[in-house]
């Protein structure tokens, strides 16, 4: 069953999403990875505002390839989310509820997701050419000096994702393989 999800990711909307749901996401999202997260958390620690409004925002952990002439963006698949675990609870505490990436998260992140109604979406790792097709616009917001890691605002249409961890802490990485093996055993 495929759900169409229209951003922003309000608390109400977040609560309707369950781990294992296949979704098509539409709306504005922001890109950031290692260096960008470090800078954002330093900014917050100093008590300064972020370069974008984090309320109900969704952050895509991605460092795209440079756009070819005529392209909106280069190949743009997810990077390993675990490297952002140190920063994710802080980002959720200021309202950034959605995360798009790939790979396992630490228990601290899952706890913060339960507290702030966060949702962790998985995009297909290694499908950068396919995912770029769902990105309809890309605008530089800040941190241009970080190159592929700059903070960008993207408009995505029907971006194919899977809910990996929902706001109750259910985790597809845990029950997906277990369910598959159980079903095989029958």
């Amino acid at each position: 069953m495929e759900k169409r999800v229209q951003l922003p990711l309000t608390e109400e909307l977040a609560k309707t999403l369950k781990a294992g749901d296949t979704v098509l996401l539409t709306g504005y999202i922001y890109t950031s990875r290692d260096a960008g997260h470090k800078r954002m958390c330093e900014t917050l620690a100093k008590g300064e505002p972020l370069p974008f409004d984090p309320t109900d925002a969704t952050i895509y952990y991605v460092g795209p390839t440079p756009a070819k002439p005529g392209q909106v963006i280069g190949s743009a698949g997810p990077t390993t989310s675990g490297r952002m675990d140190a920063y994710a609870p802080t980002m959720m505490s200021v309202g950034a509820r959605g995360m798009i990436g790939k790979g396992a998260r630490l228990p601290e992140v899952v706890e913060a997701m339960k507290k702030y109604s966060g949702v962790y979406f998985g995009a297909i790792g290694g499908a950068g050419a396919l995912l770029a097709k769902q990105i309809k616009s890309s605008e530089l917001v800040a941190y241009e000096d970080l190159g592929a890691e700059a903070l960008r605002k993207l408009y995505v249409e029907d971006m194919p994702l899977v809910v990996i961890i929902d706001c109750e802490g259910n985790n597809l990485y845990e029950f997906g393989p277990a369910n598959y093996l159980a079903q095989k055993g029958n």
Partner: protein
Amino acid sequence: MREIHVNSIIDTIEKLCIDANTHLPCDVKNAIERCRACEDGSIACGILDNIIENYNIADKENVPICQDTGMACVFLEIGQDVHIVGGDLTEAVNEGVRRGYANGYLRKSVVKDPVRRGNTGDNTPAMIYTEIVPGENVKITIGPKGFGSENMSAVRMFKPSAGLQGIKDFIIETVQAAGPNPCPPIVIGVGIGGTFDKAALLAKKAIMRPLDTHHPDPYYADLETEMLNKVNELGIGPQGFGGKTTAIGLNIETLPTHIAGMPCAININCHVTRHKSEVL
């Protein structure tokens, strides 16, 4: 003695960097499509279809298959009767990488210092592996290596008494620990023997070897098949969401080793396992 000018090395490396990042090799595509035909997980089938669609888009539109266009691993098999003229070979390799990553719109993912970081801006230096071989040709292989999977690799110095079972357990343990992080379905390269460093090199060579080939020794060829099947019984599946296709290939490379040891290295690669070669 045959002369080869560095300019032809630069041009070849530029072209191979772009080709390798844009067009997935046939052996990898065939392995993915074979696994798709046998897959029985529900989310898993959809993911594999998207992976196939992704490399078809990359082929057709000449865009990178994955945004992690990797560190450029460059293997040079240099014939002993070749004389390289016109400049420094290492600089030529790096110049080829520099041009390939700039002109191919590939991502620059290399930092100049492992601790203090700072992007070099041109994806150099390349990781260069040279081997002197008989003859008067130079064979160049480029394998752009992503780090989502590289980070899940492991090396262990076994006591010989650990035996074959020790290696089998180590493979399973490493794949389990990697879980969803290396973008499964993965390719597993296993290097056994040699020294600490040679085992790791063997593992890297193993992921560069086409997936439709086997170790020449039937003992290890059978082990490749057995361990690939075992890994695919773990249920991790594409992207770690559950399914049969956890790995699309497992290659083993071996070397003699010391009486006191049994080094074993496992290099993990993803479904975007890239390698392109050319002989000059």
